[in-house]
């Protein structure tokens, strides 16, 4: 178990080093997120819908789509020189490859969130002062759920004829039980309710994370050539 996690960390470090040196996906996801914030603001009549009602939904739609940009890259970066064959030939468990990829994607999504949440607060004039800690907790729980499913589907989608076109179709239905609780819990926090009010939503997020991290880690080896 410790070995699986140590190997996973090595693979995550490799992916993060590639991303850190090229910064291609991170900047495109970030610019995408900022553009999303701006477009959503103008898509609603700001005199009819107040910013505080709009913000939670905007945040979670943005994370879902910008996260997908990063997750798609996670396995397509291994495609050109069949890098995945190198990973498979190396003496690491297949579960480690999945967990490593997922961990790198998690860092990616959390990094986008770390810029996007303050940006939404800034542009929409939200007071984050006393809710930022529980909000960060919700964001992390939701990111784990998005990343576990997204990483697995990204591994599958790159090997199909439709490639990146398939990823949103496969993963968006699975993101629904993450985005609904996350947006609802965020809305509760931002309207000044205590964290306890969002308890049911947080439990749902946690349950999703546990079930799908385990299921996707176990399912990943089946997506590889035998």
């Amino acid at each position, binding site marked *: 178990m410790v070995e699986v996690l140590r190997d996973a960390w090595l693979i995550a470090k490799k992916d993060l080093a590639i991303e850190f040196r090229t910064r291609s996906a991170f900047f495109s996801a970030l610019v995408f997120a900022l553009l999303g914030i701006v477009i959503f603001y103008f898509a609603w009549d700001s005199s009819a819908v107040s910013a505080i009602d709009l913000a939670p939904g905007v945040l979670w739609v943005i994370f879902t789509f910008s996260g997908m940009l990063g997750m798609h890259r996670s396995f397509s970066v291994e495609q050109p020189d069949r890098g995945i064959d190198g990973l498979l030939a190396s003496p690491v468990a297949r579960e480690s490859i999945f967990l490593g990829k997922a961990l790198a994607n998690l860092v990616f999504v959390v990094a986008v969130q770390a810029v996007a949440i303050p940006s939404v607060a800034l542009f929409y004039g939200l007071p984050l002062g006393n809710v930022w800690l529980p909000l960060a907790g919700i964001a992390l729980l939701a990111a784990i759920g998005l990343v576990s*499913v997204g990483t*697995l589907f990204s591994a*599958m989608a790159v*090997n*199909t*004829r*439709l490639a990146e076109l*398939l990823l949103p*179709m*496969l993963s*968006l*239905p*699975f993101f*629904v*039980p993450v985005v*609904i*609780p996350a947006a*609802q819990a965020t809305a509760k926090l931002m309207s000044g309710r205590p964290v306890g009010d969002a308890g*049911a*939503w947080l439990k*749902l997020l946690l*349950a*999703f994370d546990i*079930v*799908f991290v385990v*299921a*996707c880690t176990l*399912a990943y080896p*089946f*997506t590889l*050539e*035998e």
Partner: protein
Amino acid sequence: MKPTPLSLAAVAAVLVTFVRAIFFTPLEATQGPAQKILYVHAPAAWVAFMAFGLVGLTSVLYLWLKEDRLDRVAESSAEVGVVFTTVVLITGPLWGKPIWGAYWTWDARLTLTLFLWFVYVAYIVLRGAIDDRAMRARYSAVLGILGSLLIPFIHLSVYLFRTLHPQPILMKPSAPSLPGEMLATLLLAFASFTLLYVALLRARYRYAVERDDAHPAEAYDA
């Protein structure tokens, strides 16, 4: 493909159900003729859930046994399930407009059914996007299993919103609350739709067998 006795029997049973539902079952007092759509809607929903249940089951068994037949059953059941889910999604709004006053509401069961439709349409698209037969079987089994795991989560997350859907009248702890004649028609509809499902599943399965026999090399392409 020639019609089999099973498919003829299934079509006949569904026709008998419709004739009975339209001409020999009393009108419901408050809803009037609109209520008759129940005899299509409820059994179609039952068949859809059964079909997707079978996809989940055969997907697990496929990853365990690596038996081609299981993959073909999953493939066939998913397609038939999508057809019945489409029937549910069309008949529901037709009834909802006169009774609820809206074609669509974001009620828990409606939303769940819509997402089931999305998941299994994606399942069919995924199958179509992979040429290698063994890989297609493994990938779709993975999606079939994850799809089954997803259902309770979608249900829970949308259930925390208010639910508008009529409560179950058949499968509930107390006695069924439908009057005798309507209940008989509904039970007949469940039986005939189940028969139709089995007939369609079998026909679709035979098509898959013939297709795979026609292109046996595909399995070794990789």
